[in-house]
């Protein structure tokens, strides 16, 4: 799991450098982490499943053995987290 917050002050981390494994070139800068990377492991897993189920909450509900509104609420929570990160 990619660390997203500072272990010392808990502020959001930025990407400082990226490296090419083939020629060892390093790109240094200050890049924002993608929004999806900021989400928890469970939330990321939920999004992957959601995409795999073609965005069908009904199928997600039967796969997770949860009720439809429960799955919809889980998705709504992720949406609010994404909206908060984007702000």
């Amino acid at each position: 799991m990619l660390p997203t917050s500072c272990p010392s002050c808990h502020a959001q981390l930025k990407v400082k450098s990226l490296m090419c494994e083939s020629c060892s070139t390093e790109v240094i800068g200050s890049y924002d982490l993608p929004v999806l990377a900021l989400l928890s492991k469970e939330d990321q897993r939920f999004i992957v499943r959601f995409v795999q189920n073609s965005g069908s909450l009904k199928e997600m509900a039967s796969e997770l053995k949860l009720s439809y509104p429960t799955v919809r609420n889980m998705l709504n929570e992720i949406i609010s987290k994404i909206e908060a990160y984007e702000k």
Partner: protein
Amino acid sequence: MKLFQKLKRMKSKEFWHLLINPFRRIAGWQAFGVGVLFVVVMGLVGTWADVAFDGALDMHLTDSLTYAQSFLYLGISLASVVLVMWLAGVMIAKQVRFIDILGTMTLAKAPFLLLAVIGLFTTAPDLTQITQNPMAVFNSVSFIVLLVVSLPVMVWSIALIYNGFKVSCGVQGSKLTLAFILGLFTAEIVSKLALYWLL
């Protein structure tokens, strides 16, 4: 051994959680189907036991009850809760499906079946005797049992209504609590008014 105990503890925790909030797992048509089954049995047992569910959260012993009366009481009490909680849900949530409210509220009636069953073995104390001597209520042990059991059943049903409303609306915090309390009070008043006008 420790793992077995841990599993056992987890299962029992899950069991209690399921009793208080089954709506995490079932809602909508599924909950409605199971709920209707409970309501039908409740209506039948209620008729045999002369127990009327005449209000959103009410239960009374009667002298005699017909099948029609029993199911009419149940229908009105259920309809009032469903309609009022749905309206409350529409007011506080963006996405609320009627079928989720219908299903969860119907299943939330299930604990009252316990009272209908206990009602089969209950003899109501004589009202004239009670008015002369209130302590006469303690002469009927079965009635005391019914009274004692009715409190946790009521709490259980309210917890189910709350959780059903919470899952169906996907709202949290004071908005949810306020809408729930106002909704339940309104449902109780609506059911009483409907019973008054219809019967």
